[in-house]
C-alpha cells in the first residue's frame, strides 16, 4: 500500500552493492556506499530512498550516512542523523521515514564497528 508520504518518481531507481562498514571514524576513512552516475550530459544527483543494515558484529553500531570523507581532503558530512543498528538485528528505513536530501555526490558512510552490512536504494535525478 502506497505511503501517504510517497511522491511521484522524480528520477531513476538504483541500488548499491552490499557494502561492509569499516570502523574508522576519522576523516579520510569513510566508505563509498553508492557511486553516483556522472557519465551522461550532466552528473546526476542522488536522493537516499531506502537504507538496510544487518549488524552481526557482536556490538551495537552507530551508522552514519553522508558524503565525502573518502580522500582525507573533504571531511565526511552526514546527510541524515546517525542511526543505531542493534547487534543481532537488521535495520530498515524506508522513504516515508527518510528526509528527501538530494546531494550532488557519492553516498558514503562511517561506522564505529567493522563489518555491518549496508545496502541503499537511491533515486538518481537527471
Amino acid at each position, binding site marked *: 500500500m502506497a505511503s501517504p508520504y510517497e511522491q511521484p518518481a*522524480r528520477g*531513476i531507481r538504483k541500488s548499491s552493492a552490499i557494502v561492509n562498514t569499516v570502523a574508522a571514524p576519522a576523516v579520510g576513512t569513510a566508505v563509498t556506499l553508492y557511486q553516483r*552516475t*556522472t*557519465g*551522461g550530459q550532466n552528473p546526476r544527483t542522488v536522493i537516499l530512498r531506502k537504507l538496510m543494515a544487518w549488524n552481526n558484529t557482536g556490538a551495537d553500531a552507530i551508522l552514519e550516512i553522508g558524503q565525502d570523507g573518502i580522500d582525507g581532503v573533504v571531511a565526511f558530512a552526514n546527510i541524515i542523523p546517525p542511526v543505531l543498528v542493534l547487534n543481532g538485528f537488521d535495520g530498515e528505513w524506508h522513504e516515508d521515514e527518510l528526509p528527501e536530501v538530494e546531494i550532488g555526490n557519492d553516498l558514503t558512510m562511517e561506522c564505529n564497528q567493522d563489518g555491518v552490512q549496508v545496502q541503499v536504494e537511491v533515486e538518481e535525478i*537527471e
Partner: protein
Amino acid sequence: MADLYPYKPGEIEAIVLPDQIVGVWVNKVYKFYKVVYIEPIPRCDAIEFDFGALAAGGVTAITQLNLLEMPDREFGQFRGFVIDDITANLWQGRSDGRYKLNNRNGRLTRATDLRDPCGHTTEFYVHEDDFAFMQVLNPTDYALTQTRVAFYGFRYVLEVAVDASGRQYVWSPGKPENYPPNVWTRVPATAHL
C-alpha cells in the same frame, strides 16, 4: 472522423486509417501513398535490441536497427524506451540525428518515460530502406552486461497514391510541378529539413 496524427500523446494509435493518404518525408521529398493495410507491432522481446556489454562510460558504434527494417511499399511507426540505465541516440540516415535541436540532439534515457509514460515524444517512422540507427552510451560508473532498447508500434502497407485520372501526386520544396493531394498526413521518416 478519427482524430489521428503523428506523435499523438497517449497510448499509441495508428496515425491514419486504411484508404487515407500519407506523404512520407524522405530525402526532402514527400512520397505520397494510400494506406491499404495496418498491423500492430506489440512491445515484446522479439523487437528488442541488446547492444551488448558496455564498459563504464563506453559508447557503442552507430548500429543499424535491423529489426526495424521495412519492406518496399511499407513504413513503420515506432515508439521506444531503454530498459537498462543507458542513453540512446537515434539517427535516420547514419548521420542525421533525430530529436534534433540547433546545438544538440535529444535521446532516450531511463528518465524519458518518467515524464512521457506513453512515449509519444520518442515516436519515429521508418520507410522502406531509409534505415534507423542507434548509438548507446553507458553513463554509469560501472560496466553493464546488457544494454537494451525496446520498440513497438504499427506497420503500414502502402500503394502509390494517384488522383482520379491516374496522375501521381508529387511535392518537394519550391518545385513548380508540385501536385499534392487535398488531404494527407505528413509522415516524417527522415530528419532532413
